[in-house]
């Protein structure tokens, strides 16, 4: 996997604690004292079992919910969850929430990525149309501009949302489970697209996934978030040599279940280290 030479820090978190604050009760803490950083052009995969707090971590990094404590900076500027417009200029987010709007064209949807930059009347900018068509080309959807979004396949919709994130012109793109609901060819194609975009544009990409195999192939760096809030970081190769995967995806209750998981990781490691 290629990695560009001069790396600039894009995202940094210091002593970050994530979770949910409750009024009058102690907060629910999912992970604490996280020290994270993402460099330019890096693709980072966030993996972890259900309930470990992957979505919460992504939502916190994206400024969609405030951290319990600690700070997050993007290119040196702090992220504040109440300043959505500034945040939208620093990072873009691809969500899995379904968009159910009829008669909405791909072009119209992608153009909404320019929202933080257009004036309050949403007038088109000088180079707006060019940017949008370029982004559609980058996600391999050239010629789709006038198609209706709700008539596209799930894989195509995902790529339209990625194009919307691209026109937002941010150094970091965060994707929450971009391969959920997709079949295998589409999952592979989305992951390859993320890799290519990072290499071609120098943008950093952070995605969460349950596709361990694909994530291992795509990412420069993995964040393994365990139940209990421990986060293990490293390159896929580094993590493969230890027991990090088994520890992260441990199932405490059933021996047979755990054997199957261990077998799975043995195969995964064999196929990846052999390369």
């Amino acid at each position: 996997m290629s990695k560009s030479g001069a790396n600039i820090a894009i995202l940094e978190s210091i002593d970050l604690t994530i979770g949910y604050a409750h009024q009058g009760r102690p907060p629910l803490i999912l992970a604490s004292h996280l020290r994270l950083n993402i460099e330019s052009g890096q693709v980072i995969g966030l993996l972890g079992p259900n309930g470990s707090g992957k979505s919460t971590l992504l939502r916190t990094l994206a400024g969609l919910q405030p951290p319990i404590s600690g700070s997050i900076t993007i290119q040196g500027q702090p992220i504040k969850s109440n300043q959505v417009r500034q945040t939208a200029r620093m990072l873009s987010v691809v969500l899995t929430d379904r968009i159910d709007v009829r008669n909405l064209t791909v072009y119209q949807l992608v153009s909404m990525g320019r929202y933080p930059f257009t004036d309050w009347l949403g007038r088109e900018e000088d180079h707006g149309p060019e940017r949008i068509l370029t982004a559609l080309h980058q996600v391999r959807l050239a010629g789709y501009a006038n198609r209706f979004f709700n008539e596209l396949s799930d894989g195509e919709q995902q790529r339209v949302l990625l194009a919307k994130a691209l026109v937002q012109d941010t150094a970091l793109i965060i994707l929450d489970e971009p391969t959920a609901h997709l079949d295998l060819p589409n999952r592979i194609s989305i992951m390859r697209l993320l890799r290519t975009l990072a290499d071609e544009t120098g943008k950093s990409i952070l995605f969460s996934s349950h596709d361990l195999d694909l994530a291992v192939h795509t990412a420069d760096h993995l964040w393994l978030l365990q139940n209990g809030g421990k986060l293990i970081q490293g390159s896929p190769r580094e993590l493969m040599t230890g027991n990090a995967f088994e520890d992260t995806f441990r199932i405490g209750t059933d021996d047979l279940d755990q054997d199957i998981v261990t077998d799975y990781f043995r195969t995964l490691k064999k196929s990846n280290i052999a390369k």
Partner: protein
Amino acid sequence: MNTKKTRWIFPMLTGILVLAFFGDLVFGSIRLSSKDFFDALLGRPGDQNISYIVWSLRLPKAITAILAGSGLALCGLMMQTLFRNPLAGPFVLGISSGASLGVALLVMASSWFGGHAMVQVFSYGHLGMVLAAMAGALIVMFLVIWVSVRVADSVSILIIGMMFGSATGAIVSLLQYFSDPDAVKSFLVWTFGDISAVTAEHLKLLAPIVIAGLLAGLMLKKPLNALMLGENHARVIGVNVKRFRIIIIIVTGLLTGAITAFTGPIAFVGLAVPHLARAILKSSDHKALTPATLMCGAIIMLICDILAQLPASNQVLPINTVTAIFGAPVVIWVILRNRRGRTPFVS
């Protein structure tokens, strides 16, 4: 991207609007010859009575129809977009129920204390009734805003708005139960809706509020387009969801409150017209959808007013019955059309 279609849709809507406007001036319980009508309209010397009918009765009524139709339709559109619910309308926030509570209190509760005299003083169409309705609408609006600052999601606002509506509706029922039949009747007549009660004097108050609301609604096209995707999608492209939610509620509250105060609650226009505009435009882009909704609302209201005059020449139907009879088939049609759209393999 529907520029080719929009190009002829807006001139067409403008044409229909002008026709409907003049139609509403010409048709009425007193038939006017076209010569008399144009004489009166252009201020040529002629029959004073006809001049009075055109200028003091029909013109204010037609203008009210345009204001009420476009205002309610805009509220319906904003509510449907904000709540992403095709069945939302201007009345979901309970604001018009607040208006009816104001009127009910004035008409019925006053009859307990002052007897008929009070009802006579604040007789139908009088400014006192308007002020009572406005006060009721504003109180509910502020309650809804107070709540919406405190809850995170729009669905809760929708539910709470409907609860306010139900509660005020129940109080109105109680008032009716304990009031004498005359007072109940004058309240019921108010609920039928009447745009002819709005005089030129009233328009001086109603028109600025509605025009300000319409302009605000037209300027909200960018956040409305974003909110249509869902609140999370709107947030990640930089929309301050909470702020725009409150702005939309204020604009809707002022429009619905003011219109309901002057004309009584007019059903269905707000719910049905945005669907009509979407079907005509085949676009969900508020840049075109908002103006089209305003124009369709004005047209439908003018047509409903013409229909309310026609059937029995010297009897006028309550406007609410006409809009509902027109609105129900539209809503049914939209639901049937949506069902067809969801099924794949059918174009």
